[in-house]
């Protein structure tokens, strides 16, 4: 249980080959004052690139104090991929003012950190920066796509004994980050709380499909054909909500949103390798008319049988609304009480 007072943790946050979007998302946390909430939980920022006062040598001093043990580094949060190129030199990101590759700083700091947290899919698995020909030789902290390893290696454990905690997402939901940090501050996080890809299970044990507002269209396989259509986006528009692990349609974004509610497909941004799906993002790859990626845990034969049955049973309302940008037929009004 949560005790009366958290132990508190010192957090050092570094950014490398990413877009800063996970920090920007963090600042969208639905809270009266994010900073106050974190500090009341005992989460103290030693330094954060977007939020702290310190600049230049003041920052390198903070990092050196962590390395020498003068300051306890409880959680090292890394946002952005780790850039090993060109030719293993790490030269694509020299930390400003230090002339040293960021990957060297991260390796050293990870060796003294009690917990190491990858914030976002870039830091977890390589992410978008590793797409295409991966020009910067980008990888995650402990993964390269779905291959364990990455910058720190398979054997890496932080001082707590845990591997890297992968708060994957592109970007991450603010509360995934806040809750992870608070769990660490309260001493409530163990290896049992991580899934097989290192993600906190509190959000990764769900599918994006759970709570999707397009579920009636999904049930009848009434499919959207073009952007702005209301129908299910799995059959044609590349949606991976039935396979992607995250609670985006249960824990909404920016108060009321999610990708599918925003009119576009889930591109499974919490999964390793999402950046190279092997097909155009907004098109569902099919074999003989059947989507290659079927809903998680669903045998193909059952999917095919159910899909053809439900298609033949689709009400006209659902079929026509699916390819419209607003409801053209409203649900019939039924007497729902017993006569």
């Amino acid at each position, binding site marked *: 249980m949560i005790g009366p007072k958290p132990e508190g943790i010192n957090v050092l946050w570094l*950014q*490398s*080959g990413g*877009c*800063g*979007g996970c920090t*920007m*998302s963090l*600042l*969208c*946390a639905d*809270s*009266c*004052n994010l*900073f106050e909430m974190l500090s009341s939980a005992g989460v103290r920022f030693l330094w954060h*690139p*977007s*939020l*702290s*006062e310190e*600049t*230049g*040598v*003041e*920052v390198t001093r903070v990092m050196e104090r962590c390395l020498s043990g003068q300051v306890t580094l409880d959680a090292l949060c890394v946002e952005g991929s780790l*850039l090993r190129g*060109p030719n293993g*030199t790490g*030269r*694509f*990101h020299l*930390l*400003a*003012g*230090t002339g040293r590759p960021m990957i060297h700083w991260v390796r050293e700091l990870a060796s003294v950190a009690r917990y190491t947290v990858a914030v976002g899919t870039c830091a977890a698995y390589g992410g*978008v*920066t590793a*797409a*295409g*020909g*991966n*020009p*910067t030789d980008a990888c995650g902290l402990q993964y390269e796509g779905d291959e364990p390893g990455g910058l720190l290696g398979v054997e890496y454990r932080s001082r707590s004994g845990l591997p890297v905690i992968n708060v994957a997402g*592109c*970007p991450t939901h603010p509360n995934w980050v806040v809750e992870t940090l608070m769990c660490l501050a309260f001493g409530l996080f163990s290896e049992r709380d991580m899934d097989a890809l290192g993600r906190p299970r509190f959000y990764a044990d769900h599918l994006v499909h759970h709570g999707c507002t397009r579920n009636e269209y999904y049930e009848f396989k009434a499919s959207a054909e073009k*952007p*702005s259509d209301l129908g299910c986006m799995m059959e044609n528009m590349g949606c991976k909500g039935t396979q992607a692990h995250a609670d985006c349609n249960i824990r909404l*974004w*920016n108060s*009321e949103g999610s*990708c*599918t*509610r*925003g*009119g*576009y497909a889930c591109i499974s941004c919490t999964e390793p390798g999402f950046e190279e799906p092997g097909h*155009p*993002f*907004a098109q569902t790859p099919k074999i003989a008319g059947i989507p290659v990626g079927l809903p998680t845990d669903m045998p193909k034969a059952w999917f095919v049988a159910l899909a053809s049955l439900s298609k033949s049973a689709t009400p006209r309302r659902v079929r026509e609304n699916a390819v419209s940008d*607003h409801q053209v037929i409203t649900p019939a009004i039924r007497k729902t009480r017993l006569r």
Partner: protein
Amino acid sequence: MSRLVVGPFNRVEGDLEVTLEVAAGRVRSARVNSPLYRGFEQILRGKDPMDALVFAPRICGICSVSQSVAAASALANLMKLEPPENGRLATNLILAAENLADHFTHFYLFFMPDFARDVYRHRPWFTAVQARFKAIEGSAAGDALPARAKLLSLMGSMAGKWPHTLSIQPGGSARPVEGGEKIRLYSILREFRRSLEKTLFGDALEAVAGLESARDLEGWMAARAPDASDFRLFLEIAQDLALEKLGRATDRFLSYGTYSQGDGFMFRRGVWDGEFKPLDVDAITEDISHSWMAGPAKPQPPAHGVTQPLAEKPQAYSWCKAPRLNGDVAETGALARQVVNGHPLIRDLVAQSGGNVRNRVIARLLELALVVPAMESWVRALEPGAPFCHHAPVPEEGCGVGLTESARGSLGHWLEVRRGRIHNYQIISPTTWNFSPRDAQGVPGPLEQALVGAPVQEGETVPVAVQHVVRSFDPCMVCTVH
């Protein structure tokens, strides 16, 4: 002469290093280095053209929608597609919400905390500023973060999430707004307006937007106590520290124009160098003489640009290329947008003291006062039931250009498609303009010029004046080094 290497810079988006030559307590010359390279232009080659809508926003977590709008416009240009009225309004609203959230974040979280530093402890305004703006601890965060989060709930409704939406399409918006939602969107904007009027300005938005001259502004200031509002407090600091004398760059201003009105823009496209001139997009080139890039020595127009990193190169000191307009340096951002568009207060301030730290901040806050009322009118104009998105196939061959304005200035995407795949994709982002390195003629970029003359106090390793100048541009390094 002594040399000072400053970095890592925080409260700028991404990593930044500045090398200063200092003599007699002043910066004599500056070199600006973007020390991180990511290679989006390389990553995009060979992809399906529509995949640009997934990758472009992820160039940047703070200009995400702007990148999305630029990519969608480039594709629309290629596909010869015009969005319907609703699509145009929805795109304006989503883009404006990001731009305003950025201005707001910049002022409260990135720029103002520097005045709460110890070095100012003897200034008369220090106690008030420290209580309000101290990084992480100041009371302003408690007002600003919830107001910002609430404004961005507009993104939850209209764009699914922020950052990294996919709702903005070449033909409009994939997220139609339903009848009842208009009221909800409108009340989000009214709430944001209230917080701006109460806390930031202490005055009606229309009153701030209606200030017509430097004299008007002085009168406005004189009529209020120094701590009457956050804007008033900034003006107090600006006057005390003479921020209008700090950080002057080239005084040549560029804006691509933004917030589509169908046949034009709410903020017009153009160039200002003492007078208004139309923008010749074909006069834009990128010079790589001082960038860690391989390619032709002659500056290239972006449509034919090449991005090939080369880590070992004599003379080079940044991953950033050097964009030039007719061979000249240009500054971009809110100040540029408003001087080009002809806002009378900004024209007057620039006529008196040019582009500088104070004027850049004033222009940014002025945009909050100008754009919120426009957003309210766009919400009212939405017509639920009418189309939000038009559709067309992507041609197998062709080119497209997408130009827009992010909070921090002019953003352009140049796209070439061959055999149905992206053959070339070139991006020039606002901070690439503002933080560009020297060109082949040795002409420094805008920030490099703006830093010359900045005071460096005895013993300062991270000169605070340098930080004001850097942050006055609201830089976004992750865009710069896409």
